[in-house]
């Protein structure tokens, strides 16, 4: 729905429904108008997810803890991968919560149409509400997990005196936003195609799994051979995770060029996702 300005000779039409709209009309202002619904969807997701579950919301912290433990046993004790002299628990925890944030935001957005077809088919509201509320849901989850990480980090820092916390740590929210932008962008793009071709769903879950292996989640970027280093660092997630670790654990130096490339990629992907999603949001519903 587009809001119109005045026209001669005609009543003052306030909105118009037509066959298409311009690519730059992302409807973000309309989204602000519907902010209540984003919160409402978020609450629904949250309440529904932990209803009839014995330990409920504790899963949010239990999940990264168990993953960390598992990574520790497998990659540290059995496979013996380096952790760049970082205490393994912190190393794996940082990798796993950042990766989970990325993959959850991506899948949340990817299933926008499929999981909400019954609502999309019956009532109008900006379709972007759903992926945004999913992103909000995963951001809150991530914030709790990051809080847990910080708590453990500070305790460890005071007890062992090993880490140094610099002011640059305050910039980490920018990293998180970058992760979300990248994940949401890919999620929005795939959501349109998943709705039309379910094959994309299988391809994506497969690719996502492979993508984790080429991202420094449970190993440090420093072990990547020189030969592959550049292509490895062009993965937008590599600079994000490595920067996080450098800031907290003082492992190596910051690669500003790669950070910039990653930021530009993320924002571009997000913009492409928003444009595509807006262009197709109504057409997709005819084919689902």
């Amino acid at each position: 729905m587009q809001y119109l300005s005045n026209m001669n000779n005609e009543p003052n039409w306030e909105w118009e429904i037509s066959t298409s709209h311009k690519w730059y009309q992302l409807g973000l202002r309309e989204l602000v108008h519907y902010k209540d619904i984003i919160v409402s969807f978020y609450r629904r997701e949250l309440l529904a997810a932990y209803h009839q579950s014995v330990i409920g919301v504790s899963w949010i912290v239990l999940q990264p803890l168990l993953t960390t433990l598992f990574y520790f046993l497998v990659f540290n004790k059995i496979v013996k991968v380096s952790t760049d002299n970082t205490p393994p628990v912190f190393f794996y925890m940082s990798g796993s919560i950042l990766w989970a944030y990325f993959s959850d935001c991506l899948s949340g957005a990817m299933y926008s149409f499929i999981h909400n077809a019954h609502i999309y088919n019956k009532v109008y509201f900006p379709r972007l509400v759903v992926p945004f509320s999913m992103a909000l849901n995963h951001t809150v989850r991530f914030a709790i997990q990051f809080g847990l990480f910080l708590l453990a980090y500070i305790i460890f820092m005071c007890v062992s005196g090993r880490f140094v916390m610099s002011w640059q740590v305050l910039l980490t929210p920018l990293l998180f936003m970058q992760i979300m932008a990248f994940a949401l962008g890919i999620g929005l793009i795939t959501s349109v195609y998943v709705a039309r071709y379910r094959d994309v769903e299988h391809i994506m879950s497969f690719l996502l799994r492979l993508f984790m292996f080429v991202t420094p989640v449970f190993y440090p970027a420093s072990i990547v051979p020189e030969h592959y280093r550049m292509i490895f660092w062009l993965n937008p997630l590599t600079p994000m995770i490595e920067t996080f670790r450098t800031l907290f654990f003082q492992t190596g130096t910051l690669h500003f060029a790669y950070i910039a490339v990653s930021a530009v990629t993320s924002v571009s992907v997000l913009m492409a996702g928003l444009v595509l999603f807006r262009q197709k949001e109504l057409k997709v519903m005819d084919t689902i």
Partner: protein
Amino acid sequence: MLMPGPVIKVENVSKRYRLGILNSGSLKQDIAAAFRRKGALQDSAIPAANELWALRDINFTINQGEAVGFIGRNGAGKSTLMKILSHITQPTTGNIKGIGRLASLLEVGTGFHPELTGRENIFLNGHILGMKKKEILRKFDEIVDFSGIERFIDTPVKRYSSGMYVRLAFSVAAHLDHDILIVDEALAVGDTDFQIRCLQKMRSVTQQENKTVLFVSHNMQAIRDLCGRLMCLYDGYIIEDGAPAKVIGNYLQREKMQYLSQQFDKPGEAPGNDEVRIKQVSVEAVGKKIIDAETPLTIACEYWQFPDGDSEYMVGVHIYDWSWICVADMHSEGYKRGEGLISAVCTIPAGFLNQGVYYISFDFIKGKDKKVWSFDACLSFEVQQSPGYKGWNGYVRPGFPVNLSFNKS
């Protein structure tokens, strides 16, 4: 207040759907279409075999405060039109302009989550329908009052009976602060009393607050009560637009040939609900091809019953005349039966119905007076003038004797 001017203007709206299942062919088609997108031959280049025009060149204007009804048989394009007006799907051609907030109610309880309580669902559903938090808070008590389920407001809706669920859902919708409201068959659910209350609420809204209502229904009674103007759709076109009694009359007249019987083979595809599914309905003249006033009629309905526990059921037959006035209301005895196929037959003796066009609805009642479902206007027939007579007045022609006595004076 503003002078009632146009609030919706629909111009040249058409809608094409692609048919057929998705397969490798459709990928090829998509890729081909992507390359063809540039240039004007986009539309003409697509083969016509697997596409369906659900709406063709629709034009109309609706003024503020009007209550406009839409009728037409299934597949005529009513729902597609409502979906386009609600901004759920895009028109293939044309555009729609409007003034004011539009709320659409194509289903009651959209977005209700079974795990959430009634209270939480009021907010969720309200937000989805476009209400702001403040608005919901202000109207919350009124909504709960209207639904009549105060006691269960903090119970998850999965524990609600289907009736309670619908009442709560409709109450939210009935309190929408819209300028334009679109209602598509949403009233076809719920118990009769509640439906009447909803209709009254909607009518008072349009009349007092000068709001605009667009209403789709198969229930001719409801649509005639509520609307001041009707449009009839047929095969994607609007073929009539005018006063309700006239449009309904013509619609039913036009449809009558199709409706001497209807048959459905699979319960899953048959009309009905969780408790009743129609297998077949028919009206027949006993021993004759043509129905006239001298012919007895049998009105039959065969249906699958899926009883809800140990409830007592009853089936009713209603006969309406062309202007949708009920001529007769007959019903069976109450019965209790397990799941199964039930056949109900009502015989109308010769010389009861006068000549004219009639419609039949079947009602399914549970307990004393709870309407489970009704199959409205599912049959229609014309009673022909009996040969040799010019015709009688009146709805019925019972042929009660008029006795004469000749007193010698």
